[in-house]
């Protein structure tokens, strides 16, 4: 049962109100009750948050929960357990399940299962096209009614420009977010890592930066005509970031997101053929990493996401070109973003929370991302100073496929409160 919780003495950061001050936060039941002086009242439960950051619950708008179809890799239950352990109070799940989330009953299944087994909020993202085949429009309107918050064929881009235009127009009718996995398959081919000197040396087929950029450029033209809200998933190349920056300046409603690995790793990591460095888009060059960081700094990149993509050891323990793409990220994202962005002073905490909570909530059109009184009591309490080592063996996700095992990091979520209920509490 939810009760009143007083979070005392923390550094409360709320980008939606431009708040960054040490004060108190009172939650009453499932709602935020008060911030500051008005919050100093008795409560059923008091959390001492000295030297902690108190933020609106983190929202990861790019997650693969694998259910239905691949429950051996992850389920809605284990994926959301990993989410709350990483400080996320909500995740948006991609539709490349088996079968794909391409109709209203699939969307309802996810919402029902999440309500029953989930540890945090789950927002389904519906497929743009039937079976994610890129040919016929899926029942977008019915999925909106069932609760889909955005639409994407993530895992694949919509290759056909005509289909893509119609999908944008259709999604625009409901003012939902159109999320594109930007990869031109005719250029990417069977590529399994970034196309460059390293792939040439390793003899692995490459995915050129061009494969991403050509679709971003095409989509910007389409989005301008369709008037849709267009969002580039897991952006990874300098060229694509520059295009989004220019599109924003030109008034196109275009946004983008980036993953921790594209801020911290380069294609050189593939040198040992370790499949935990294989994901899509692939790890790019040093110059692309610099461009991603610059994009977060100047706002060309709006959101920080994980692209949490669980695969079992038996899936990943294959030859590099045969292994599946993707890595898990929910339980490592916050410290990795701190390492990539806060420690080198690229952005401040206000902007970090904005990119991990307030912006995703706004783009998805969902509650959250704010601590305004009366809003849902989704709160993440972060210890920004704790030093620890990432240990894949400790994770709550059903899968262990992370390239960051053993990394020494600083900062982590300590308490995750969803709807006024403490769903995760590290060592307390």
């Amino acid at each position, binding site marked *: 049962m939810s009760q009143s919780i007083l979070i005392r003495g923390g550094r409360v950061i709320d980008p939606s109100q431009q708040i960054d001050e040490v004060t108190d936060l009172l939650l009453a039941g499932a709602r935020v009750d008060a911030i500051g002086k008005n919050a100093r009242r008795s409560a059923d439960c008091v959390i001492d948050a000295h030297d902690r950051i108190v933020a609106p619950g983190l929202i990861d708008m790019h997650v693969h929960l694998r259910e239905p179809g691949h429950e051996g890799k992850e389920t809605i239950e284990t994926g959301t357990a990993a989410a709350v352990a990483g400080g996320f109070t909500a995740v948006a799940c991609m539709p490349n399940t088996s079968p794909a989330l391409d109709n209203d009953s699939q969307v309802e299944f996810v919402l029902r299962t999440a309500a029953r087994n989930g540890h945090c909020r789950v927002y389904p993202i519906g497929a743009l096209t039937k079976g994610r085949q890129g040919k016929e429009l899926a029942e977008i309107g019915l999925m909106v009614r069932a609760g889909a918050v955005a639409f994407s064929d993530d895992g694949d881009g919509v290759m056909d420009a005509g289909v893509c235009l119609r999908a944008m127009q259709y999604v625009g009718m409901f003012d939902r977010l159109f999320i594109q996995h930007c990869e031109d398959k005719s250029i990417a081919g069977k590529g399994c890592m970034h*196309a*460059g*000197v390293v*792939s*040439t*040396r*390793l*003899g*692995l*087929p490459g995915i050129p930066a061009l494969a991403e950029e050509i679709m971003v450029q095409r989509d910007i033209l389409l989005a301008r005509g369709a008037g849709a809200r267009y969002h580039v998933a897991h952006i990874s190349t300098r060229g694509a970031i520059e295009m989004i920056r220019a599109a924003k300046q030109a008034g196109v409603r275009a946004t983008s997101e980036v993953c921790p690995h594209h801020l911290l790793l380069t294609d050189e990591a593939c040198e*040992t*053929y370790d499949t935990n460095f294989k994901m899509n888009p692939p790890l790019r060059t040093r110059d692309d990493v610099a461009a991603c960081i610059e994009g977060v700094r100047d706002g060309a990149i709006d959101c920080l996401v994980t692209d949490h993509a669980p695969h079992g050891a*038996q899936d990943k*323990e*294959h*030859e*590099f*070109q*045969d292994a599946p793409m993707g890595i898990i990220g929910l339980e490592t994202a916050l410290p990795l973003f701190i390492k990539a962005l806060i420690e080198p002073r690229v952005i401040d905490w206000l902007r970090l929370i904005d990119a991990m909570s307030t912006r995703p909530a706004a783009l998805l059109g969902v509650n959250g991302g704010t601590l305004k009184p009366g809003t849902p009591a989704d709160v993440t309490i972060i210890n920004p100073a704790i030093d620890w080592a990432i240990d894949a063996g400790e994770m709550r996700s059903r899968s262990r496929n992370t390239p960051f095992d053993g990394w020494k990091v600083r900062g982590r979520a300590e308490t995750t409160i969803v709807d006024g209920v403490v769903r995760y509490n590290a060592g307390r």
Partner: protein
Amino acid sequence: MTPDSREFRGWTRKHMLSLGELSREEILHVLDTAEGFKEVSTRSIKTVPTLRGRVVVTMFFEESTRTKMSFMLAAQRLSADVIDFSEKMSSTQKGESLLDTARNIEAMGVDMMILRHPAAGASYHLSRQIGCCVINAGDGTHAHPTQALLDLFTIREKKGRIEGLNVAIVGDIAHSRVARSDVQGLIKLGAKVTLVGPPTLVPRAFEQLGCRVTHDFRRVLPEMDVVNMLRVQSERITSNVFPSTREYVRLFGLDDEAVQLCRPDVLIMHPGPVNRGIELAATVADGPNSSILRQVTNGLAIRMATLFLCQQAAAA
């Protein structure tokens, strides 16, 4: 510290995975060791007891009669027990992973695995997970170290040196493990490497690996001491990376007319099997400058040296 700057203190590697990880001194050591084994093939009894009691398995997941035979013969001449496990299906098709297959074979008491596999890095993958020696007999488009070693051996034998030579490698560089391994070995031993082919088959990234890239074969031919012609794979002919075989032959084939542009003592190489009339005219393949059969003979000595050195390092 780069491998090249390390002082050579004898062979310590139990695996032969790629020339990329070998120092110049290590490469020369294999070549010198192979010199000693060359003589074995000329004896009436063509075996030495070096690997007696050892079990060598050839694991070929891709068709290659001559490489497999060369390895098997090399192991037999060293008195090893040789078994063959060959399967054309990939592990994913079969449902058993390469690693599981290898662990099963290793459990039967195998000392060395000679692996040919369609996936780049497959031999790295195995060498990290299992205990016995792994010899890479070709992994995808990544590496074919013993082929490169026998190419280097043949060049040194015919030219007396490698340093300072102009070497052209011609054809499908993009999909060639032979080209990649040759490039690594040649550059480490001081040769100047020119890669020749259409842009669809010669990635510019090779320039950053120390090579010159050109698309004009006839223009560079007169400079060359060695011309290594790669096989045109039949699957490339149908995959639209060049318009037609006829055009390819005109632009990048080595025929009698093209040989006229070469130095009289040019060494013409080919890793085999030759598409006669495509990359090489039959008369050129059989001509006085061709070292194709010599490469095959030398391959045996190189593979004996490789098996010998790796097994010794494993036993030490």
